[in-house]
């Protein structure tokens, strides 16, 4: 074959001419679809993440274009954003009425892809990664933000907690008319919304405050009164602001008056808190408590979380906990049972390459049950548990882990980010989802 037949001379120029035209946009959309289908057909994944990537890489205007004239609600937090997004989506009419992104596809590409599939729907409830929120928001400013908590997560990869809080503040300053639903139980969130005007503030107590002991304004010490859920800076005037809603136990108060008892079909106190947040957003949008309750009590597994899988005669429920604050919630949830436990730990890029955060968690409440550890970094968690006085077994595979418990056992699995994903793949392949 002659060389000049293969020459690409002129092609780049032609493509450059095309960029930005509607024809180019259609081409990119088709390409994204095609790549996604290939990925799905070759069982590399659902294909959506790859489609989303192609779409947002090749068409940088796609996000702002697809977002145009839509009502956007962004949900962000270190912990609980996936579940709370699912809950708010359910409360506001479910995915038939609401555009939403799949668990984890929460950066620019994932948000763009979800919006590209809007169809006739105009309202979007989107989970956005906390460090990407300002980036997404710059291209497609939200109508409302739901800001829940900020704690340490993958310190080697993402900037530190206070610098994210600072970026969120700047983001809100450039979007002054946005409505913000803010959990002011978290001092970082209180700081973020301090100068914003349209704020629906609420308190859904967060137990984890080791990441917020320093005043975000003057860097002095913040004192916590955990018994009454209050905090204030010892030097300046920063402290917990007054809030419109307070959630205690399972009771939601507005202006000091009990307005609802929160219920949800998902387990754990932390999901009750997430449900309270979804309730507040629903009520503020004029949805009745009855409708909200019905949505929140019929919700089942969210991206595989909380589902029960039957595997060789044993029953496994999977939870993700990827940082000390998340673990704290899981430990609280499991405190009233002695169910056997599988802990899985990886240290890939998405998990944070460093496992030292395991020492910021008090695992001693697990001393009363059978514990098995798995994952690429199973010896890191094994050593941690040994020093915490928790006896355990180390195994190489999920099969070994599950079969090491008696038949009929109800087993809880808790893993960090990529380890949780591979456990879910295993459970879906080998097990049967029964609930």
């Amino acid at each position: 074959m002659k060389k000049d037949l293969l020459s690409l001379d002129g092609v780049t120029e032609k493509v450059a001419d095309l960029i930005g035209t509607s024809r180019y946009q259609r081409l990119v959309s088709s390409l994204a679809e095609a790549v996604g289908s290939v990925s799905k057909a070759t069982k590399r994944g659902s294909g959506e993440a790859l489609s989303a990537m192609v779409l947002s890489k090749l068409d940088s205007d796609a996000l702002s274009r697809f977002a145009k004239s839509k009502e956007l609600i962004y949900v962000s937090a270190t912990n609980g954003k996936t579940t709370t997004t699912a809950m708010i989506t359910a409360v506001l009419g479910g995915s038939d009425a609401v555009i939403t992104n799949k668990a984890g596809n929460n950066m620019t590409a994932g948000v763009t892809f979800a919006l590209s599939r809007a169809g006739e729907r105009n309202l979007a409830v989107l989970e956005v990664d906390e460090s990407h929120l300002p980036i997404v928001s710059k291209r497609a400013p939200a109508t409302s933000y739901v800001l829940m908590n900020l704690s340490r997560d993958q310190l080697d990869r993402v900037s530190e907690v206070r610098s994210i809080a600072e970026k969120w503040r700047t983001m809100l300053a450039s979007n002054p008319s946005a409505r913000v639903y803010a959990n002011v139980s978290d001092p970082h969130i209180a700081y973020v919304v301090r100068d914003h005007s349209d704020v629906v503030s609420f308190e859904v107590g967060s137990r984890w405050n080791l990441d917020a002991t320093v005043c975000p304004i003057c860097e002095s010490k913040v004192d916590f009164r955990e018994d009454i859920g209050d905090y204030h800076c010892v030097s300046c005037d920063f402290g917990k602001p007054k809030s419109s809603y307070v959630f205690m136990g399972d009771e939601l108060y507005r202006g000091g008056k009990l307005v609802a008892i929160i219920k949800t079909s998902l387990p754990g106190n932390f999901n009750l808190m997430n449900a309270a947040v979804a309730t507040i957003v629903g009520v503020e949008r004029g949805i009745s408590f009855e409708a909200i309750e019905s949505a929140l009590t019929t919700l089942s597994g969210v991206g595989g979380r909380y589902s029960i899988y039957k595997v060789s005669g044993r029953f496994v429920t999977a939870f993700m906990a990827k940082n000390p604050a998340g673990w704290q919630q899981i430990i609280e949830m499991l405190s009233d049972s002695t169910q056997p436990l599988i802990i899985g730990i990886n240290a890939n890029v998405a998990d944070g390459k460093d496992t030292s955060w395991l020492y910021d968690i008090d695992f001693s409440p697990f001393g009363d049950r059978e514990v098995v550890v798995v994952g690429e970094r199973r010896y890191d968690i094994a050593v941690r548990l040994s020093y915490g006085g928790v006896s355990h077994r180390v195994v190489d595979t999920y099969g070994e882990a599950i079969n090491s418990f008696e038949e009929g056992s109800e087993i809880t699995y808790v893993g960090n980010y990529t380890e949780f994903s591979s456990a879910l793949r295993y459970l879906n392949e080998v097990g049967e989802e029964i609930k």
Partner: protein
Amino acid sequence: MKVVQLFPDLLGTYGDSGNGEILFRRARARGVGASYQRVFYGDPIPRDGDIFVLGGGEDGPMQLARDALHRDGFLGDLSSTNHQILAICAGLQILGERFVTSKSPSSPGLGVIPIVTERIENHKRIVGEVVVEADSALELPILTGYENHGGESRLLEGVPLGRVISGVGNSYSSKIDGFFNDRIIGTYMHGPVLARNPLLADLIICRLEPKGLNSFSPLEVDREVEQLRENILSQRGMSLSRRIGLR
């Protein structure tokens, strides 16, 4: 033997509070009567502590910790006491002559360690695995840790904890990590460093216990630590002979 973890609410955000727990557990497992106390910011620093452990932290917290230690005065005067100090990262920096924060290029330290820390020029923040060959006087196997700091430290005098085999350590140009003398061990290694390097924990305990290092037998947990070290060091391409960290 009383192990005191200083200000885990300020200096301990990288799992470094585990070091205190590990010293306590290992001492107890060897039959040494040990106790463990976490001293939070604002609490008095106990005068009867034997081992004081300081962890890493962010700019604001490390200055608060420095101020509190300065007001207290106790750790600043090592000559009159017989305690051991383990200081990691920000803990190491505030014990030095001066250190750097986002707000101040030169903030005075406690002057216990002859080290100065300055802002990193022309290089990225130092983040990643670090492998260190400890000073031969310490008779320790290869040390490993996870470093994550935005300052470069220069030793003015004295001996570093070890030579950096891979990673960065105190500074890009020096190829050394930390500092040690007969009272202090300072390092940039998180992990926590004592979880990954149990013989360093035993060394600190032995400095207070006349029995000596060799009378300490390996613990149950050490088989798991060996696997952990094997994982980490084989990834770093270390030869098997260097990986064998435990007796």
